[in-house]
């Protein structure tokens, strides 16, 4: 008789419950990363890098080596770790606020240098940790604490789409997933798996952006947050694999 288990990696289950809000996308996306590494036999060897935002709460739940760095600098820090620890899987687990505003230079330049790291970016359309301010990915018309009347293009520009910015860059992999349904979570996990495989194959920079809910700062129930991703967010940020060197 074969047994199939749906179980979080041991190194996650020995820790405290996470500090994320109910329904927060971080819980699922981070877990996918740890699952992939566990299935590849690499979880113990891995080093994850966080900045100061909600992503950093995973540092206390996962029993692997972790580095916490300044806001916007996780990708640069991860590149530094990997350059001196080439045999360890190294990944930056970060938010859209940091990666597309204050840390944007490093996001783009790590791609330009094809740094051999994996970057997983949560796209939840807000700066979550600081109370839900407008982020580079906030939608036009979306109300946040720093766009109370809704984001306007003439003042704040249009939502930033990393897939458009990295088009044509010679990197290993770029994909966007979502965690609004079980099917999309499974697809996203495959994207993250590809990203880590490419790192361990020394192919260079891989980035997976994941559409995720922030019920607390969206002012929606968890259920309604997933609906919002399906009905509004996905229209602006389409899912799929955008770059795979040698394939597309």
């Amino acid at each position, binding site marked *: 008789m074969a047994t199939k288990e749906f179980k979080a990696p041991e190194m996650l289950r020995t820790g405290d419950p996470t500090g994320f809000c109910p329904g927060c996308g971080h819980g699922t996306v981070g877990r996918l990363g740890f699952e992939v590494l566990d299935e590849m036999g690499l979880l113990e060897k891995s*080093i994850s890098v966080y900045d100061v935002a909600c992503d950093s709460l995973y540092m206390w739940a996962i029993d692997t080596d972790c580095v916490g760095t300044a806001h916007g600098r996780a990708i*640069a820090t991860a590149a530094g770790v990997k*350059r001196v620890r080439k045999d360890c899987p190294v990944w930056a687990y970060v938010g859209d606020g940091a990666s597309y505003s204050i840390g944007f230079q490093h996001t783009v330049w790590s791609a330009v240098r094809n740094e051999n790291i994996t970057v997983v970016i949560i796209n939840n359309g807000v700066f979550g940790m600081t109370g839900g301010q407008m982020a580079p990915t906030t939608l036009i018309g979306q109300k946040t604490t720093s766009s109370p009347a809704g984001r306007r293009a003439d003042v704040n520009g249009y939502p930033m789409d990393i897939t458009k910015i990295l088009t044509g860059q010679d990197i290993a992999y770029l994909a966007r997933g979502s965690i609004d349904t079980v099917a999309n979570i499974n697809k996203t996990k495959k994207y993250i798996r590809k990203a880590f495989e490419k790192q361990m194959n020394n192919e260079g920079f891989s980035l997976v952006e994941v559409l995720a809910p922030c019920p607390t700062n969206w002012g929606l129930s968890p259920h309604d947050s997933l609906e919002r991703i399906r009905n509004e967010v996905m229209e602006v940020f389409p899912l799929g694999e955008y770059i795979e060197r040698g394939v597309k």
Partner: protein
Amino acid sequence: MADNEVIMKGNEALAEAAIRSGCRFFSGYPITPQTEILEYMSWRMEEAGGEAIQTEDELCGAYMLFGAAAAGARALSTSAGPGFSLYQEAISYLVGSDLPAVLVDVSRIGNALGDISQSQGDYELIRKGNGHGDTMVIALTPASVQEIVDDVQLAYELAEKYLHPVIILYDAAIGQMMEGVTLPEMSEHDINKFDWSVKGVKKGEHGRKITNVSYFCDDMYVGYEKYLRDKYQAITDNEQRWENVEVADAEVVCVAYGISSRVCKEAVRNARAEGIKLGLIRLKTITPFPVKAFEEIGPDCKGIEIVEMSIKGQMIDDVALATKCNIPLYGYLTSYLVPDSEKVIEVAKDILAGKAEEVL
């Protein structure tokens, strides 16, 4: 290099000495007058089996260094003036995360863009700045190319002893000058030597977390207060470095570091030949400030002549504190010009004649 006795430019000697100390990672950005360090590293580091990255800005330079240091490597990032201003947050993070690291400021003249010639206008930045939140670094101030070479090894040792960032500060004159040096033998650094650094966990090990050390202290800031104060006190007690030249019987004592101190050494020699009792306290660290150096000042001292390439006279407060405001302070402040030894003596004569104006 088979021959360790060479003539080298200060900046290049810094880079070579770092490599010989086991540094195998450099990240930095071009800015005059220290770009030679980046340029030298861009070919020499690979020869030595390491990596040198020209980053997109100083911030990336500092944070790649942060990552490399977190992983246990000896890493280096260097900048000058406006670029060093960009390091401030990162230095605060290095302090707060207990990471050993070496950074370099090759000081140039002026606020804003200023100019590229030498000055000592970054004293306060490095002595008192270094980012937000009760930060303090260790800062070495070499005055010759040989001292740069020796200070690099010392910097890594101190950084690892205290788990703390160390800054090497020298002015453009020293960075650009060529002098004969004896280089140390090549050495390797074991990246796995620290238990605390991230490297992947073995079975049964718990994950290490490189982040604010305060998170791990008893009651967070209650415990961290004591921890950090104790660390700073240990640095202050044990790491003051200075060189005194004819201080004990001096009637005027110069205080200087870097290129200014070399000019003062010449002034002391020439003044003594004229029968003027001039002395020099040369600062070899500015943090911790070598308060102990001032204990040698004798009862005959009529005044202290602060010789600094700055507009404000940035050392004045520290010297006043070190002497408990008991000795009149005078200044020979030259902003971007290297001080002149004849003028140092002239100011000393004015002090002795009661004609000089105090700076405080």
